[in-house]
């Protein structure tokens, strides 16, 4: 029996929706599961149903009251480190990208090539040396040391921003130069307002990058009162195994919510950033 064109179309659409729904379930299931687990009574990983029989906020309360956990302190440490290193790192990245995009000077090509090459080494290959440097500067086990490491490494990721600046027409700046505006005024008055989407993208990715960085923070920070969220959550899962799973779930949910919301709200900037990075290779 040959199906009519319409019913063929119908079956195709039905299959499409079916697939879309399956993908949607797979996409959101882990998030749903961790949220449900965080409200579950008890502390084990195992549960009969996805939606627990009894709901409780005990685990959230425990995060803020248990002195052994120090969760609010981790949160505060992480927030502080990420915010400062994002501001510093993003400024450095934007400045670097602007200089490399707008000016033609001797050594420019060399700088671009070295940036590409440096990006090809595994990031933490330099950790031991950084550790020695931080010790000699008396900055190991300090938040400032970590901030310095994050911020100083940021300009190496300036390619995306450079690609963006390349697309802003030069005519604007040339007109301003004729009007007698200085480089600094052009940069602050014209270029920065135009690059808001790019700045948002870079700031957002660097904020989340540092907010949830485990490797460098666990390497630089030692004392318990300096711990970050990433370190605390990782240790909860890897060391105490699954015995405190529900507390971990609550901690993870609280940590993830602000970032996830930020991402969803600023989605269009992310998409713009991702695609511009793509076309520039």
């Amino acid at each position, binding site marked *: 029996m040959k199906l009519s064109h319409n019913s063929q179309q119908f079956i195709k*659409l039905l299959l*499409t929706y079916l697939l*879309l729904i399956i*993908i949607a379930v797979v996409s*959101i299931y*882990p*998030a749903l*599961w*961790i949220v449900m687990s965080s409200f579950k009574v008890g502390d084990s*990983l*195992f*549960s009969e149903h996805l939606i627990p029989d009894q709901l409780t906020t005990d685990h959230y309360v425990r995060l803020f009251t248990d002195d052994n956990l120090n969760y609010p302190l981790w949160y505060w440490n992480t927030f502080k480190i990420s915010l400062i290193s994002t501001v510093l790192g993003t400024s*450095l990245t934007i400045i*670097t990208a602007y*200089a490399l995009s707008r000016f033609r*000077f001797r050594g420019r090509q060399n*700088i671009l090539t070295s940036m590409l090459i*440096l990006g090809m*080494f*595994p*990031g*933490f*290959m*330099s950790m*031991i*040396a*950084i550790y*020695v*440097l931080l010790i*000699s500067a008396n900055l190991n086990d300090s938040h400032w040391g970590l901030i*310095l*490491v994050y911020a*100083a*490494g940021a*300009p*190496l990721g300036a390619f995306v921003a450079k690609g963006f600046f390349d697309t802003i027409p030069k005519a604007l700046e040339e007109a301003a130069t004729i009007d007698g505006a200085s*480089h600094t005024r052009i940069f602050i008055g014209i270029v920065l307002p135009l690059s808001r989407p790019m700045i948002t993208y870079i700031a957002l990715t660097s904020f*989340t990058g540092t*907010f*949830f960085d*485990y*490797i460098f923070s666990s*390497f630089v920070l030692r004392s318990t009162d300096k711990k970050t969220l990433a370190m605390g*959550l*990782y240790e909860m*899962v890897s060391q105490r195994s*699954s015995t405190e799973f529900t507390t*971990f779930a609550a901690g*993870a949910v609280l*940590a993830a919510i602000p970032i*996830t919301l930020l*991402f*969803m709200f600023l*989605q269009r900037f*992310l*998409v713009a950033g*991702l*695609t511009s990075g*793509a076309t520039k*290779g």
Partner: protein
Amino acid sequence: MQNYARTAGILSAVFMGLGQLYNRQIEKALLFLCYNVFAWIMFSKYLPNAIWGIWTLGEHARTMVKGKFPKEYDHSTNLLIIGLAVLILFGFYLISYIYNIKDAYETGREREVYGSVKTFGQTIKNILTYSFPFVLLTVPIIGVFIFTILPLVFMILLAFTNYDRNHIPPSKLVDWVGMDNFMNLVQLSTYSHTFYKILLWTFIWAIAATVTTYFGGMLVALLIQQNGVRFKTFWRTLFIIPYAIPQLISLLVMRNLFNGNFGPINQYLAFFGIQNIDWLGDAFWAKMTVIFVNMWLGVPVSMVLILGVLTTIPRDLYEAADVDGASDFQKFRAITLPMILFSTMPLLIMQFAGNINNFNVIFLLTNGNPPCADCQYAGETDLLVTWLYKLTLDRQEYGLASSVGIIIFIIIATFSIWNYRRSKSFIEEDMIQ
């Protein structure tokens, strides 16, 4: 006409600032003279020591002499890193010296031509206008030198030393050992078996991870973009969620989801009568799990990118195909796929290179486990990067770890350069407007 330029240049070559003095740029000359005197004092004090330190890596370890530790001892790795810092500074000094000669020569030229020189204020203004990019780049470049280049050169040099847990300064000295670490990896020895095994898995992983996320993303993008599908924005937003959740959190959550004993995945499978699968504990399943989880993380990005490409494909291509009576599949084969592949190929190769270095997924999900019986400090799912991490932090095999790092660099650099060449030739050929 007097030959100011040559005289000034020679004077400045003899001692920094003399040429400027001769050119009657007093402020600049004083600045240069002071800088040079300072540099000479500093370098005469530290440079010989730095070169000696790098050359010998120290001669006296901190060992007991007559029941006491000596006050003076050599710390090999500190000697190396401080020596490198001094050498880099010396390099900058040499560059500034050359610049000083050039400046004296050019100012001399100005005197010959115009009969006058710039005042100090004019010079400053000049720097701010014409050297603006350098002014901008000063801080970033200093940061990159201290926190990226210096540490990297240090680690590259470590690959040629015997720095390991039997040679920890200051109680032991570290020595140059040439290519021994690389030979240990490549030739038959305890490490080479592990190295080849991990290298193979790294490539399998990188190919599988790249291909699955890419085609997964393409499938999702095509599904959303199909004619007749409604709420396109809704679906797209929903599918972006895995990208929005911080990777660290989702990976730690996945670790529990796939828990072999209590995890919900096995619980659901048991409902269908499937026995417990040890997702993270069995070598084969652990490999499957990391690839699947990576797909979950990576598909949204590919989807976003491919959705972007799909909107750029000209409609009339499809209309022409419709006129010719092409089926949906033929349209996909002849129009959509080539267009997507063409515009995302450089990105695909960069993703492949990135996956070779994909530390997070492996480290946070399996930590390289399950353990591999005949490997040296490595598990079944360890990539070269995670092995490098373990060799460094758990085993303190610094020299060996550095040589692994250099090998990773060579692999990635090869792909990147090839990619760059290829995409450049593509652009030059102007295949598609």
